[in-house]
C-alpha cells in the first residue's frame, strides 16, 4: 500500500500547539453533551475510535483491511449477548467484546498477513463475509432481528448508565483510553518497527524482524480496539444487529479514515465525525446517504488524497519549509 502511505506527520510544526489543541478538544468533548444530543455524540465517539483502530493498521502498518466490520459488529454481538442473556455488568461485557474481537482478529490476521496489498484486502473481505453469514445463521445473534433491548446496567455496580450523562462520560473515558492506547502503540518501540515495515518490508526482514509476527500483533491490537468501539456502541444503542458486520461497515471505516487523513492521529476522528454527522443530517432529509458518501469519497481521492488533516499538515509543514 505504498501509494497510500503518507509523509511522516510526526515531524510536527509545533508539539506544544498540538497538545494545546488536544486539551481544547477534550474540554469541548466534556462540555458537548450540554449542547448536542448525547446519543449522537456517543455514536460519533464510537466511530471515531473505530476509525482510529482501523488507522493503526492502514496508516501505521500499511495494511488495508476490508474486514474490520467483523471486529466492530462481532464485539457488539458478544457484549450484547453477555449483558442481556448472561446478565454481566457492562464493563465485563465490554471486555468480553474486546477479547472476542481480538480472537477473531487473530484468526483473520493469521490467514491474511501471508499476502500483501489487494490480496490481503480480499482475504479479509472474504473472511468477514464468512463471519457475516455465520451471524445470519447463528441462533445467539437472533438473525435479522438482532439482539435488542440490551440493558445498560450499572457500571462497576454503582453508576447507572441509563442516565444519559453517565453513559456519555463512560463512553468518552473509554474512547479516550482507546485513542490513547493507539497513540501509545504508534509512538512506541513496537510502533517504530511497524512504521519501518510500512516503509520497506524487505529491509525490515533483512534487519532480522519477523515481519509476519509484527503484522499479526498490529492486526490483533487493531481488532481489539475496533471491538471496544463496537462493544460501546452496543451498550449505547442497546442493540447489536447485522448492519455492523456487513461489508458496507468495513467500507465506511475506510472512507472515514481516508477522508480524515490516514497516518495521522486526529484524521480518523475528524473523518468519522464528518461521516456520522452527515449521515445524521441526511437521514431526515430523504437524500440517499450512500450517494453522498460515495461523492465525498470520489472528491477525497481526486482532490485531497492526503485527507483533511493530512492536507493541513502538508500545508503547514510546506509553509514552514519555505518561509
Amino acid at each position, binding site marked *: 500500500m505504498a501509494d497510500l*502511505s503518507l*509523509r*511522516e506527520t510526526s*515531524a510536527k510544526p509545533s508539539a506544544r500547539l498540538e497538545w494545546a489543541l488536544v486539551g481544547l478538544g477534550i474540554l469541548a468533548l466534556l462540555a458537548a453533551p450540554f449542547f448536542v444530543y448525547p446519543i449522537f455524540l456517543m455514536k460519533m465517539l464510537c466511530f471515531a475510535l473505530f476509525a482510529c483502530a482501523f488507522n493503526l493498521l492502514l496508516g501505521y502498518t500499511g495494511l488495508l483491511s476490508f474486514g474490520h466490520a467483523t471486529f466492530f459488529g462481532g464485539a457488539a454481538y458478544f457484549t450484547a449477548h453477555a449483558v442481556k442473556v448472561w446478565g454481566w455488568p457492562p464493563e465485563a461485557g465490554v471486555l468480553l467484546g474486546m477479547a472476542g474481537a481480538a480472537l477473531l482478529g487473530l484468526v483473520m490476521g493469521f490467514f491474511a498477513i501471508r499476502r500483501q496489498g489487494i490480496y490481503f484486502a480480499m482475504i479479509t473481505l472474504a473472511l468477514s463475509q464468512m463471519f457475516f453469514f455465520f451471524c445470519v445463521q447463528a441462533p445467539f445473534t437472533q438473525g435479522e432481528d438482532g439482539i435488542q433491548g440490551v440493558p445498560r446496567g450499572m457500571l462497576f455496580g454503582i453508576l447507572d448508565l441509563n442516565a444519559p450523562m453517565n453513559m456519555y462520560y463512560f463512553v468518552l473515558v473509554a474512547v479516550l483510553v482507546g485513542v490513547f492506547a493507539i497513540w*501509545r*502503540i504508534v*509512538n*512506541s*518501540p*513496537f*510502533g*517504530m*518497527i511497524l*512504521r*519501518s515495515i510500512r*516503509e*520497506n518490508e*524487505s*529491509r*525490515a*526482514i*533483512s*534487519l*532480522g*524482524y*519477523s*515481519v509476519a509476527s*509484527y503484522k499479526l*500483533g498490529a492486526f490483533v*491490537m487493531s481488532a481489539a480496539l475496533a471491538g471496544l468501539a463496537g462493544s460501546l456502541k452496543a451498550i449505547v444503542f442497546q442493540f447489536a444487529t447485522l448492519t455492523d458486520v456487513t461489508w458496507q461497515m468495513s467500507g465506511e471505516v475506510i472512507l472515514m479514515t481516508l477522508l480524515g487523513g490516514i497516518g495521522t492521529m486526529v484524521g480518523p476522528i475528524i473523518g468519522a465525525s464528518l461521516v456520522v454527522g452527515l449521515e445524521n443530517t441526511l437521514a431526515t432529509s430523504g437524500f440517499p446517504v450512500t450517494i453522498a458518501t460515495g461523492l465525498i469519497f470520489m472528491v477525497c481521492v481526486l482532490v485531497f488524497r492526503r485527507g483533511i488533516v493530512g492536507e493541513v499538515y502538508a500545508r503547514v509543514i510546506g509553509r514552514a519549509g519555505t518561509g
Partner: protein
Amino acid sequence: MAPPDLDRSEPRVVLSARGLRRDFAGFVAVRNVDLDVRHGNIHALIGPNGAGKTTVFNLLTKFLAPTSGRIELLGHDITRTPPARVARMGLVRSFQISATFPHLSVLDNVRVALQRPAGLGIQFWRSLAALDRLTPRAMELLRSVGLDDAANRPAGDLSYGRKRVLEIATTLALDPKVLLLDEPMAGMGHEDVATVSAIIRSVASDRAILMVEHNLTVVADLCDWITVMQRGEVLAAGDYATVSRDERVKVAYMGTADD
C-alpha cells in the same frame, strides 16, 4: 568448473554453498553453484548481466528458496531457515535498490536496526523515549560513515550515495558476521565510491563480506577473492590476478570490459 577453494589453510569458512540451484518456471537461473566465504575476506561475485549473481544473493540470504543444494552459515545448515532468522544469526544483506526507511529520520533508520538486538522490538506500551539509550551507539555508527550531520533529516532527502552509506551503517548496526552487499557502488559518483570503499575495507577486518559489484577497479582494489559467474554457473574463482588471467573469463567477461 573451478573447484571450491578448500585447500587454502586460510581463515575459516563462515558461509558456504554447495550445489546451489534455482529454477524459475522451467528456466534455470542458477545451477551447481559452490561458494565459500571466509572470515576477514572481501569476496566479490562478478559476471555479466543475467549471470545469476543477484539470484545467488537472494538464495544465500533466504529471500529465495533454493530448488536444490545446501547452504551453511557458521556451521549451521540454513537451507530451510526463514530470512529474518538468518539475519538474526548474523548474515545481513543490503539491496540493489537503496533500502532505507525514507520517511524515518537518518538516526531512526539506524536505531530501528539496533532495537531488536537491544530487546526493544515489541514494547508497544513504552514511549519512544525508551529508544534514547540507543542514540549514542547510533550516532557513533553515523559518525563512522560521516552521516552524523544529517542525523535528523528524513532518509529520503539524502543523496543517492549517502543513502547507500546509510544503508551500510544500518547493516553494521547489527554487527553481522557475514555482510552481503548487492552492488554497493551502483550509480555512485567517484567521490562516493572512494568513501564507500574505505568504509567497506574498514569493516571487513572482523567479518566476512560478499559483494556483487560491476566496477572492476573497485573489485581489483578491494577484494581478496573473486567468483566469476556466467549463465547461472561458476566460471572461475580465485584472487584477482588468477581470475583476470583465466582465458574463459577473458572471453566471457573481462575481455569486453575496459576498466
